[in-house]
């Protein structure tokens, strides 16, 4: 049996230990409460900022792209009207009357951008002059962005066109090489670009001799060439999507969103799958964004 001194010592020690444990518990609870309060405040502030339009969420809806009207740029040094939005990038193409929308959140400085080529209506000299004028910006693009950072379908002077970045290393499209494809009027330019060929029919087949191209029965296709002027592969939009566009040119953007898969088959048996998101705006314009690798490195 304990003496009273032993019992007193035991009681006092246990009391101290118990108090320490309770203090720790209280501290832990205080920290947890502080964290919860902080999280609630952060979320509240975030939602508030979102509702005030100070913040843009990632993953812009296609309909939002259309809702932002495309304006004609007057300041050619700052053409991206969505400078502060990482999600929607509006790019100005060559010429002064058409603007092409792009999405997928890649911000591209103005003029370090894509080339758009009207199949039939653009004068080659005019086009070459624009290219020359923007050469510095193109060089800047090459240093900052990876190859094939941007690709998009657009509409230029009444024609559907495919927009693409110009790949590093002087990627060059020789449209002459594409002349085998019916309906394309081609010319050589200094920089490569891609052209959408409206209503292109089947029958392209292998163009470069290096690769065979897996063509599905697309109603709309694009064509792309390399620096040597050889066609690398053709783009295609799924027949379903093309059918919708043809039957209803004013289809709403929100109503049509199709992912197109293009399979490129190489001579050595290898394959490359390319993914393109295609959208049609309310006015019937086609927008597409290339999500896969356009060219093998």
């Amino acid at each position, binding site marked *: *049996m*304990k003496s*009273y*001194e032993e*019992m*007193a010592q*035991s*009681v*006092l020690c*246990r*009391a101290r230990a*118990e*108090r320490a444990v309770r203090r720790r518990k209280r501290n832990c609870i205080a920290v947890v409460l502080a964290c919860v309060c902080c999280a609630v405040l952060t979320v509240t502030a975030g939602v508030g900022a979102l509702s005030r339009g100070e913040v843009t969420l990632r993953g812009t809806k296609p309909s939002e792209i259309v809702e932002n009207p495309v304006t004609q740029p007057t300041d050619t040094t700052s053409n991206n009207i969505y400078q502060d939005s990482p999600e929607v990038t509006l790019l100005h193409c060559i010429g002064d009357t058409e603007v092409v929308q792009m999405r997928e959140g890649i911000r591209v400085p103005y003029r370090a951008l894509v080339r758009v080529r009207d199949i039939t209506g653009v004068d080659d000299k005019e086009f070459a002059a624009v290219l020359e004028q923007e050469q510095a910006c193109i060089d800047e693009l090459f240093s900052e962005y990876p190859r094939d950072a941007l690709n998009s379908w657009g509409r230029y002077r009444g024609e559907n066109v495919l927009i693409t970045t110009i790949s590093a290393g002087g990627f060059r499209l020789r449209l002459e090489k594409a002349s085998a494809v019916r309906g394309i009027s081609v010319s050589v330019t200094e920089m490569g670009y891609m052209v959408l060929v409206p209503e292109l029919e089947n029958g392209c087949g292998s163009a470069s001799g290096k690769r065979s191209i897996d063509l599905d029965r697309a109603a709309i296709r694009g064509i792309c060439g390399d620096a040597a002027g050889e066609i690398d592969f053709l783009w295609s939009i799924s027949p379903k999507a093309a059918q919708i566009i043809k039957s209803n040119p004013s289809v709403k953007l929100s109503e049509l969103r199709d992912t197109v898969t293009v399979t490129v088959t190489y001579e050595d048996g290898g394959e490359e799958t390319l993914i393109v998101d295609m959208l049609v705006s309310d006015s019937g314009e086609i927008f597409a964004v290339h999500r896969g690798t356009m060219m093998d490195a």
Partner: protein
Amino acid sequence: MDQGENSYRLFLQGDDDGLVQIIRDYKDGLILYLNGYVQNLTTAEDLAEETFLKLALRKPRFLANSSFRTWLYAIGRNLALDYRRHNKKREISLEDSPEAILEEMDLERAYINQEEKRAVHRVMKQLKQEYREVLWLVYFEKFNYREAGRIMGRTAHSTETLAYRARRALKAKLIEEGFCYEEL
């Protein structure tokens, strides 16, 4: 104001010596009282320690409606009741070890001066629990009926009646054992 109250006030003011004094003054009596409840000296000692720990940790307010000792015993009794409730299904050996018996005898010797009273205390173990309790409080601890009733959760009258019956039962036992104790 009794000594216990003074000591408790001292402890509440931050002096641990106050608690030490309380333990010194009330430990043995409380253990023997609680032993009448749980019939196990070690458990009774643990419960007494828990009683003092409760004072040390929670620092309950003593309202002076009774003596400090009454209040302390009531706290100890509540703890003993809790203990019995939680250990109802647990098998409790009523046969103490020789060491425990010796310890209890030592404690008795320290707390109960007269040999005759110690003999009575030993015979009391044969009575039922509430008789043991009331006899301990009234006869050994010298609580009046009101105070004993406060500890036991009874009225003074009920406690007096219980004490009368307990005394009669004890007398009968003492006669059986060959004792003759006039104080009862």
